[in-house]
């Protein structure tokens, strides 16, 4: 069952179409990320689910009920903002019981449930502190406890980790994942951080210019991106442009095969290959195993501990990038001529 159902939602501000007839289902109990650059409409979509923004067109359903015209305070949602938005004049406990009080749950029962939520986010013993007496990470935990304590129909997270520094962010990612799995709350997470989206999500929807470019499981999108944008926004990719000739793609004077379906002969297409799927061998070594291969000259070498990134000049001046695991100590120096080999299974024909 879908917990949240968005159908044909459009929103324009003046001449700008922020959302262009977007439809998407959010499955119950799942963690879905809305991933896109700023201006892609991801935050507007979240605010439409919350009820802060009323769409020009389309409907919003929560658990089957049409809530398009329902005000925020009746929707039974939980939201965590990037700025935390904790009530500064209330204690931690005051913040967390706020939503319970609004639902008529007061006194000892409210405090018991609030304490439970604070335990879930692992922030006990701070009940009487004011938000400004807490660190950024602790404030984030309070905001999360405040949002989940009412067991909302949907939990909305608006870039909640962006204000934290790198280490704390990674720590909170793990926490967020645990809390979401434990609570089983349907969660919509807005982010521009691809790594965050990959790590946390059951599903990802990639947005660009007010449209959903692709949605699915993180691995499905990573393995089979549909467009150039999806391929480069989620992970890195090498792009090879060529023409379809007899079931393969002619890139310069090299023929590249791909496992997926190809359009008709003569069509110009772009192929995407992930940099870690290309293997590098010295020019004389090994021979074609039926896979794809191009020659290249190493341009720059960037050593980063676990992997080394090679930038190469491919055929026809094509710029390529290859990630190689540092396992056996084989390294190529700039200027080396090498052969890049990869499987047709790792070659994706894009739609644009």
């Amino acid at each position, binding site marked *: 069952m879908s917990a949240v159902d968005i159908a044909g939602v459009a929103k324009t501000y003046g001449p700008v179409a922020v959302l262009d007839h977007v439809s998407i289902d959010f499955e119950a109990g799942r963690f879905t990320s809305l991933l896109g650059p700023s201006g892609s409409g991801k935050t507007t979509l979240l605010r439409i689910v919350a009820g802060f923004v009323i769409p020009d067109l389309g409907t919003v359903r929560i658990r089957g009920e049409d809530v398009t015209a329902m005000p925020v*305070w009746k929707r039974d949602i939980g939201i965590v903002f990037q700025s935390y*938005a904790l009530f500064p004049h209330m204690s931690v406990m005051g913040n967390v019981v706020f939503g319970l009080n609004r639902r008529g749950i007061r006194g000892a029962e409210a405090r018991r449930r609030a304490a439970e939520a604070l335990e879930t986010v692992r922030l006990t013993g701070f009940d009487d502190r004011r938000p400004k007496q807490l660190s950024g990470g602790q404030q984030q935990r309070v905001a999360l406890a*405040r949002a989940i304590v009412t067991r909302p129909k949907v939990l909305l997270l608006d870039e909640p980790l962006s204000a934290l520094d790198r280490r704390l962010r990674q720590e909170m990612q793990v926490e967020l994942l645990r809390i979401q799995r434990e609570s089983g709350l349907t969660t919509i997470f807005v982010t521009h951080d691809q790594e965050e989206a990959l790590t946390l999500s059951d599903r990802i929807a990639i947005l660009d210019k007010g449209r959903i470019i692709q949605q699915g499981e993180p691995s499905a999108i990573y393995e089979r991106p549909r467009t150039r944008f999806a391929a480069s926004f989620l992970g890195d990719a090498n792009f090879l442009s060529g023409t379809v000739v007899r079931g393969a793609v002619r890139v310069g004077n090299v023929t590249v095969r791909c496992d997926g379906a190809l359009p008709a002969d003569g069509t110009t297409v772009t192929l995407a290959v992930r940099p870690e799927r290309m293997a590098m061998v010295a020019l004389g070594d090994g021979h074609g195993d039926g896979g794809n291969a191009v020659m290249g000259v190493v341009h720059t070498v960037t050593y980063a501990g676990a992997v080394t990134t090679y930038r190469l000049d491919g055929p026809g001046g094509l710029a390529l990038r290859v990630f190689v695991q540092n396992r056996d100590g084989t390294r190529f120096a700039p200027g080396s001529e090498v052969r890049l080999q990869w499987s047709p299974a790792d070659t994706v024909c894009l739609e644009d």
Partner: protein
Amino acid sequence: MRTLGIGWLMVVVGFLYLPISVMMLMSFNASPFYTLPIEWTGHWFAQLAQNERLLDAGRNSLLVATVTAVIATICGTTAALVLGRGTFRGKRLFQILLLPPMAIPWLIIGTAMLVFFHWSGIGRGLHAMILGHVALSLPYVVLVVGTGIQTLKPELEEAAMSLGSTPAHAFFAVTLPGLMQSIIAAGLFAFAVSLDQFVVSYFLAKPGVTTLPVEIYSSIRKGFTPEINAISTLLLGVSMVLVLAFAWLSNLGSAAHERR
């Protein structure tokens, strides 16, 4: 260099406080002619307690300042909320229009009010003074509360609404408490503006019913007595407390925002 700087600051602060300090000291001096050494006495304050005219004026001052502060704070806060949260054409114009009255000389405002109040039948008296003082202090209230509104995150109300608050409940449970510091500071400021106001009060006072600054001025014209020092010392004390409370409150507010 450092001692030189501190020395200079002492000169500046001394320049600010010397006349006032002398006046305060002399309010405790037995000699009415500023003769030294000081002979300590509470005589002038005792005499002040018998001076019905000054005491009446003092009561009027407190009444006018209190009513002014209440009216200006309520009206100014409402205006600041409309300006801060509203989205409408001409908002910027309203914001700009609030500023010039603060720069118009009081003498001119006083004259304009006197003429207008006479023409419109409002007349003179405490009610006219209150109207005048409200007009003087309103822009300050709008400015002070407006700054408070700007530093308050709009997400706070959104968070409250997501938790089940209606907009009205969110306003009273979250926004208003968040603004309380600015509102109290603005009220104190309005009170101080009214309490210290002379020019406009002088123009709008009905003969026989007046406020302390105006009464002090007329007393001096009739002949200086050390009672004036005494009452001025009291007035000064009240003003200082107000200004320091204002500074403390607005400082508290900004410090709290910095840490967020």
